[in-house]
């Protein structure tokens, strides 16, 4: 009985659900309308893009790497697609979404090639491309914005439209979640990511190509950023050069909150989604508790550090228990 309790307490997703519930109740004391169905729906919709990109970040972190260029990839693909829409309004939106994903894939593949074939560490590669992609966004746009009245109605409706009363953006996030869930859990390539992240040498000896996995995770992460770029610019009806600055921290935060180990090899997609929703609630709650949006950055930093420390302390405790058990 006691052991069962302990196991439940150690379940990361369950812990996070409890923590989220406590947070929600605390906020609702201050503002009861926060728990209204409409507001919850809004929070989920606001978090949809984060969920997409964070699931890409999850793949990279699972291999023990990190992708700092996600914000810049979103900005570049969003800007490129918005400009296409501005100058060629006749291009159908389906093609635009496809092109967005394609551009993101290309940028991600560049990261992946540097890491996998050039042996450049992920931090260095993506720190560099973070600047390169952002710089190219400026060069492409010549510093100009694409604003709402320069976009077509159909483009702005990509995330805004509704199906069965649910916003399209949320549905896109659900679709990404479903595909990624299947990919990570039930395909060979998905399992190989865990293998490489868990133990490189062992993975090598059972015939898993580390190069292939590294290239793949960055490419997939890029593709998701490309999709997110389309969604972002269409949703906020503006493509600016600073789009998604600092977004990399939020995606890493969602992963860490969801119990993903930054050393690689451990973490689940459901955890990441929970982590993203937790962040979404905090961001949406700031105005409710009368904190200016200027607090957002500091609070996110604090939450990340707290989550990392919690993860590490938990891991260390588990290790000690494992050791003690073995001694007995």
């Amino acid at each position: 009985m006691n052991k069962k309790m302990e196991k439940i307490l150690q379940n990361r997703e369950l812990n996070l659900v409890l923590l989220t519930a406590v947070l929600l109740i605390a906020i609702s004391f201050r503002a009861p309308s926060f728990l209204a169905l409409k507001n919850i729906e809004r929070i989920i919709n606001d978090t949809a893009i984060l969920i997409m990109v964070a699931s890409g970040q999850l793949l990279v972190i699972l291999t023990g790497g990190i992708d700092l260029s996600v914000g810049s990839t979103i900005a570049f693909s969003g800007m490129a697609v918005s400009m296409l829409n501005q100058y060629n309004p006749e291009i159908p939106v389906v093609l635009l979404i496809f092109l967005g994903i394609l551009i993101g894939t290309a940028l991600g593949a560049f990261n992946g090639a540097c890491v996998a074939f050039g042996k450049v560490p992920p931090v260095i590669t993506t720190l560099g491309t973070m600047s390169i992609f952002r710089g190219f966004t400026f060069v492409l746009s010549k510093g100009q914005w694409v604003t709402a009245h320069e976009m077509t109605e159909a483009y702005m409706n990509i995330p805004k439209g509704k199906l069965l009363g649910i916003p399209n953006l949320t549905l896109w996030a659900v679709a990404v979640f479903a595909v990624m869930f299947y990919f990570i859990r039930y395909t060979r390539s998905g399992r190989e990511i865990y293998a490489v992240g868990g133990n490189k040498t062992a993975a090598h000896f059972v015939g898993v190509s580390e190069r292939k996995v590294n290239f793949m995770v960055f490419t997939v992460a890029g593709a998701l950023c490309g999709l997110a770029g389309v969604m972002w610019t269409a949703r906020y009806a503006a493509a600016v050069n600073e789009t998604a600055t600092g977004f990399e921290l939020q995606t890493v935060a969602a992963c860490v909150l969801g119990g993903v180990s930054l050393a690689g090899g451990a973490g689940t997609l459901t955890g990441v989604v929970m982590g993203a929703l937790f962040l979404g609630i905090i961001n949406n709650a700031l105005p409710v508790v009368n904190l200016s949006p200027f607090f957002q950055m500091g609070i996110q930093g604090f939450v990340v550090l707290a989550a990392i420390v919690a993860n590490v302390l938990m891991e260390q405790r588990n290790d000690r228990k494992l050791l003690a058990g073995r001694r007995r």
Partner: protein
Amino acid sequence: MGNSMEHVSQTRLINETSLKERMIDLATRWEFILVVLFLAVVVYFSNASPHFLDYFNLMNTTFNFMEKAILALPMIFVIMCGDIDISVASIIALSSFSMGFASSKGADTPEIVLVGLAVGLLAGVINGLMVTGLKIPAIAVTLGSSSLFRGISQAVLEDQAYTHYPESFGYFGQGYVGESLVPFELLLFVILAAVMGFVLHRTTYGRKLYAVGNSLTAARFSGVPVSRIRFMNMALNGLFAGIAAVLLTSRIGSTRPNIATGYEMEAITLVVLGGVSITGGKGNIVGVIIAVFLLGYLKFGMGLLNLSAKVMIITTGFLLIGAVLIPELLNMLKSWRKLKNQQKGL
């Protein structure tokens, strides 16, 4: 017996390097490549613009990159040990914010400087404690703390700025040494580089850095206090970020929450471009110093040709990746040549 003798002589033949081989070795030495690149920059831009080779300009433009150069010095130690610190720009923001706060409360120049340095050191100590005490990877710690440190100054300052500093405070970032054309920032960098170079190449601490970088485990088993060294590195990084914050705040005379954005990328680029191995254990101070002036004067020249700041940022990003990628490709080429030579010999 005879067979093995023959084998030995053959091995010696392979190891004996011809003049051509030695030339190739020299040409692929990283510092040599850097010097060639530096000369190329000087020759190209002095032809492209008549204002490039001007003593006053060459001195004055160092104002634009000395803060980043100072950040790069302790970053050598950090990267040498296989760690990384992407929070230095945010430490500058926090430190600059604290100096602005102190100044607004009526503090004078010495106190302001002291506050700036102390806050920088404190931030570095916090990073160091989390990296070594809790055994969290440096990239994770500094990603989180970079948001926290800048977030604090953003939460308090919002869209405001501190703009009032005592007049004497302006010397650090704007002043010249005596009557000469040498900026104080440049002199300070030279002194700090000499000190850090001495520590790296002439003290046991420096030798231990190489040991930790080459193999953390081997260093620990040889009695090197690995954790203490990595902690010291992070703390030192914070202190130097504090120094850079004093210079930068003094130079621009104001503090906004977005101060020094992107400096961490440039500092890391300087270190990596200078030939310090990101996987640890390799590099020297000379390479980094050449990299400082190479990148600084490259940007100065690009500015003279009216290239936008964004083009320079793109260039810096490519240099960062290229600095790791190109030696890796050269290594592949070298081992491929070796393999071919061996096949020819046998």
